[in-house]
């Protein structure tokens, strides 16, 4: 009886399941405890921050790179520091310091066995966030190409933060070290980003954020050596048996840092894609969009088709709408702003083609630089032309406001409506001739040069 009962209680692993003992002893370090939570916290932080502002980067590869990079550095690095620091204080909290001190394995191996799970999970959290961001942009991209180097430098910076934090957590195993380290990280990164004039700003992993500039090819490796070297030096100085080995990564980091500071502004140059544009030459004026979002051209052409159709055969117009950094040429007009993303373009679509066309029509004449406001007659003529070419979505609202206004406002409205009616009543040939004459005076401030309606 007893024997039967004892046999029943024996636990034998079922056949076909590999024995757990054969798994690596550090597996538990990776799967249990704080490390996966640290990775999840980083992923959620980045995901929330990115998702909330998705309209401003989704669809543009440069915008995605910048937003991901800034978010990862500004939010991720302090969090990685804090997570590493928390893990570093673990032996004190678990009261296993004594036990660990008797281990046969060297200090560095023990350090890495405890630190690497957090490092790996933090990097994994970032990698998932980066992959999601790139997927999100890939679905709506309209040109340019993804940058896979920047995420790697970000990952190195995050891993360095977690490693350095771990060493600090070992040195100061106080329960407030981690949050205070994170605050210090925010303050330091924030101050460096805020005061972006000193030469030391090139050492900040955040660097110089821009959608149109890209770093020279060796900037990411140099930044990697700078951040990774510092972290490696901290780790070796803390945990290696031969502490002087810390001097090696420190020297490498110093050299890379010196290179970054010395080169200064030369680290950045204009994105080649941003320096060219693609054009539709079949319209009047021609329409060009920046190479960074070249696939937007059909949409833009479509949005401006009403405008360009009405300008067919009209003389004295700019040759093309251009979309390059800097001022347009003498016979060119600036295409309405597509960037920053999130306003006229969201997720690869023009948000409001009518508004876009109106802005394009506005770009064809310019009396903004006139010393004094042009008279009501010229204003009415300008308004009639814009109304004919591409009326503002808000035009009706403004007309209604003027109709409810005082006598002067009502009189002005009447003049405007008359001018619109006269332009509309012209024959096609007559109107083309009149518009050609009008655009000849498009930039003038002298009311007498603007043709009457």
């Amino acid at each position, binding site marked *: 009886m007893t024997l039967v009962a004892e046999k029943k209680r024996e636990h034998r692993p079922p056949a076909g399941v590999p024995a757990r003992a054969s798994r690596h002893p550090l597996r538990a370090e990776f799967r249990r*405890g*704080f490390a996966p*939570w640290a990775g999840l*916290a*980083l992923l*959620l*932080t*980045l995901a*929330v*921050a*990115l*998702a*909330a*502002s998705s*309209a*401003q980067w989704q669809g543009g590869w440069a915008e995605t790179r910048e*937003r991901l990079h*800034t*978010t990862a550095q*500004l*939010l991720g690095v*302090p*969090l990685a520091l*804090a*997570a590493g620091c*928390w893990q570093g204080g*673990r032996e004190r*909290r*678990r*009261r296993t310091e004594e036990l660990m001190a008797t281990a046969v394995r060297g200090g560095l191996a023990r350090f890495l066995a405890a630190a690497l799970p957090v490092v790996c999970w933090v990097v994994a959290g970032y990698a998932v966030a980066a992959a999601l961001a790139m997927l999100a942009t890939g679905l709506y991209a309209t040109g340019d190409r993804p940058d896979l180097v920047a995420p790697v430098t970000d990952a190195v910076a995050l891993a360095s933060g977690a490693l350095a934090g771990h060493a600090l957590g070992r040195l100061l195993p106080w*329960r*407030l070290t*981690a*949050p*205070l380290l*994170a*605050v210090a990280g*925010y*303050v330091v990164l*924030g101050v460096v980003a*805020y005061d972006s004039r000193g030469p030391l700003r090139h050492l900040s992993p955040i660097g110089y954020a821009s959608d149109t500039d890209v770093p020279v090819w060796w900037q990411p490796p140099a930044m990697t050596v700078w951040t990774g070297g510092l972290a490696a030096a901290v780790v070796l100085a803390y945990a290696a048996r031969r502490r002087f080995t810390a001097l090696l990564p420190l020297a490498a980091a110093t050299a890379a840092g010196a290179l970054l500071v010395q080169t200064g502004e030369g680290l950045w140059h204009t994105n080649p894609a941003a320096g060219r544009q693609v054009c539709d030459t079949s319209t009047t004026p021609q329409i060009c969009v920046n190479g960074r979002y070249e696939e937007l051209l059909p949409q833009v052409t479509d949005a401006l088709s009403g405008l360009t159709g009405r300008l067919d055969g009209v003389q004295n117009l700019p040759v093309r709408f251009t979309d390059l950094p800097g001022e347009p040429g003498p016979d060119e007009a600036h295409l309405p702003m597509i960037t920053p993303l*999130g306003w006229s373009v969201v997720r690869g679509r023009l948000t409001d083609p009518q508004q876009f066309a109106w802005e394009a029509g506005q770009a064809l004449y310019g009396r903004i630089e006139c010393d004094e406001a042009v008279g009501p007659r010229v204003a009415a003529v300008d308004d009639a032309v814009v109304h004919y070419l591409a009326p503002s979505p808000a035009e009706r609202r403004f007309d209604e406001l003027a109709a409810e206004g005082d006598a002067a406002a009502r009189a002005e409205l009447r003049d405007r409506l008359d001018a619109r009616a006269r332009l509309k009543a012209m024959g096609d040939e007559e109107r083309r001739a009149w518009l050609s004459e009008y655009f000849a005076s498009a930039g003038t401030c002298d009311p007498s040069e603007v043709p009457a309606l």
Partner: protein
Amino acid sequence: MTTSGLLLYARSRTLPRTVAALAATAALAVWAAHGLDAYLDPSRRVPVVALAPLAASALIGASLYSASDELDRTAVRPWWRRRLVHLLALTALAAALLPWAVLGHTSSFGPPAMIRNTLGCVGLTAASAVLLGARLSWLPVFAYVSAVYVAAAGVDGGSVPAWAWLMQPAGERGAWLVALVAFAAGTVLYLLRGARAEGTRD
């Protein structure tokens, strides 16, 4: 040497150290705000108005830790009173010290905004102390505040959503409502449940 119970309670929760750390945080915030040239634009204070309450709430959250949790639970005294006094006293101290960093501009990013953010952050920290344990209570609040800080900076102006209460000027009623609800919910949760037991494990 004193053996007064309340004093012993205060020492067991490292309250003297927490008070000193809160004072240091306030001093740091004054120093940081001074360099921001906020007279040009009060919204330049946003980093201080968001980060200082975050740091203060992390300190307050860590002070909720009890090393003798198992013994504490056999106490005859009802805990909610001590918890309430503990949380309110530290929150009041933080809310009294931090606004000195951002005097003026009361309708945008001045003392009222600082007090609102302190209340909201303390509420979130207290709630996460109940769910995660006091020693790690700073982590979710950190993740939340920093994500909001970056996300709200990019959100189109006009109606900033409720989750970005931290970043709104003090005049916004909705932001006050969210912060007060967070504070009330966190406080009530902590009063009822106390910080999650942690033992020596992590």
